């Protein structure tokens, strides 16, 4: 009889690693989801509930240029200008930074607390938080205004999809990418985009001003 008990145990043993693996890869089952939802409510989300079209509904985890872990809802409450870059980029990225600075200058009369600028790397392997920090310093990006983010390749791809941003890693280490500045309202909804380099910032500035006034 004992022998049979052992035999019965065998499939259990085989089943075990498989189950664990499944749970790791799987999105949360309803019960687990409730648990985590109530946990976030209990802990630190001082901000309002996210709207349905908020990009901050993405649950991915990021790191800023200080190496601090953060989630996108932390960007809530400010109008954010968002662009995707990689610091090894020699042609377009410096120009997109220049375009963003031009917009920043135009917005000088606005309260610093109302507008943020977010740069998201498309090259997480090379753009570590330390590298992003160096890039921010080299380009004199005011840390009270500029947030530089890196994350898992998957998370970056997901955010790029919501920003309608196309990019592709080339074999030579370059990244072909669209050049785009997106404006998110204080809830994280995409409200305006300018595409291309050296575009007149007027429309984007107006979009930001309008949003700030509505704050």
């Amino acid at each position: 009889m004992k022998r049979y008990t052992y035999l019965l145990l065998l499939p259990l043993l085989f089943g075990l690693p498989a189950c664990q693996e499944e749970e790791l890869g799987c999105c949360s089952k309803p019960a687990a989801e409730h648990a985590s939802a109530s946990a976030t409510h209990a802990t630190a989300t001082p901000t309002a509930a996210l709207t349905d079209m908020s990009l901050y509904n993405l649950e991915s985890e990021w790191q800023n240029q200080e190496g601090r872990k953060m989630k996108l809802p932390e960007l809530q409450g400010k109008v954010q200008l968002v662009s995707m870059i990689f610091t090894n980029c020699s042609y377009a990225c410096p120009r997109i930074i220049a375009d963003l600075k031009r917009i920043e200058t135009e917005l000088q009369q606005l309260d610093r607390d109302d507008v943020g600028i977010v740069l998201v790397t498309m090259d997480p392997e090379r753009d570590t938080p330390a590298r992003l920090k160096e890039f921010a310093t080299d380009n004199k990006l005011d840390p009270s205004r500029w947030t530089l983010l890196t994350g898992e390749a998957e998370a970056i791809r997901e955010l790029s999809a919501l920003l309608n941003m196309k990019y592709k890693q080339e074999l030579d280490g370059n990244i072909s990418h669209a050049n785009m500045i997106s404006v998110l309202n204080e809830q994280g909804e995409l409200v305006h985009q300018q595409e291309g380099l050296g575009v007149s910032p007027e429309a984007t500035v107006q979009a930001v001003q309008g949003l700030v006034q509505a704050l």
Partner: protein
Amino acid sequence: MKRWFLILILTFLATGQAIAQKTIPQHMVPIKGGTFVPLYGDEAAPVEVKGFLLDKYPVTNAEYARFLADNPKWEKDAVKPLFADKNYLRHWDTGQGTAATGKAMYSPVTNVSWFAAKAYCECQGKRLPTVSEWEFAALASEDKPNAAQDEKFYQRSLDWYSKPNPDILPPVQNSFRNYYGLYGMIGLVWEWTQDFNSALLVGDSRSDASQDRQLFCGAGVNGAKYVGNYVAFMRYAFRSSLKANYTVANLGFRCAQSIK
């Protein structure tokens, strides 16, 4: 005797993990790695694809319905418009019956967004295939892993693509089976890929070539090599027109897995 069984069990415990990783999951086939020149690639620099596993069939309506039962946040009424547009699973309301039991239960699920497809695959411990992986696997005819030079194969593919979609898509098992044992890579539905937004073919670059450099950093834009492969061209063009929350009546997906 008792001791003998204990030893046996311990041995299984130790090797179980290794065995589990080498076993190919049910309904997946291994795709041996290799190189190929993608449509917008450079013939001097073929793209390398590492060996990977790919689902034999596109995900069916019945399978997708089971996923929803476990993950109600992806139900039609619950899903956020950010992650799926209003046509999400539209065909379940009209004609094809509900997926789990209806006439279309073995047909590929369509009207699903990239986010939904991605979540489905993650729930299976899988992921969406990359464009390169998908295109590499789709190069196969019935008897050759790479039918890139086979004009007859292209012609047949073109004929498939030029047929209108039937009201009810055929069951996945009835579709074209290629060299690897993959069904429906051609002639059934379009399929989502992980990096569908990597094809740099935007409206502006098509209408005004001089603007390319203003829009893109890098050189990989628009330099199609194998225009002969019009079928692949259609796929690249289609992908570049998609957004991640779009749902389309003939766009489905299948999942992939890296080989550990």
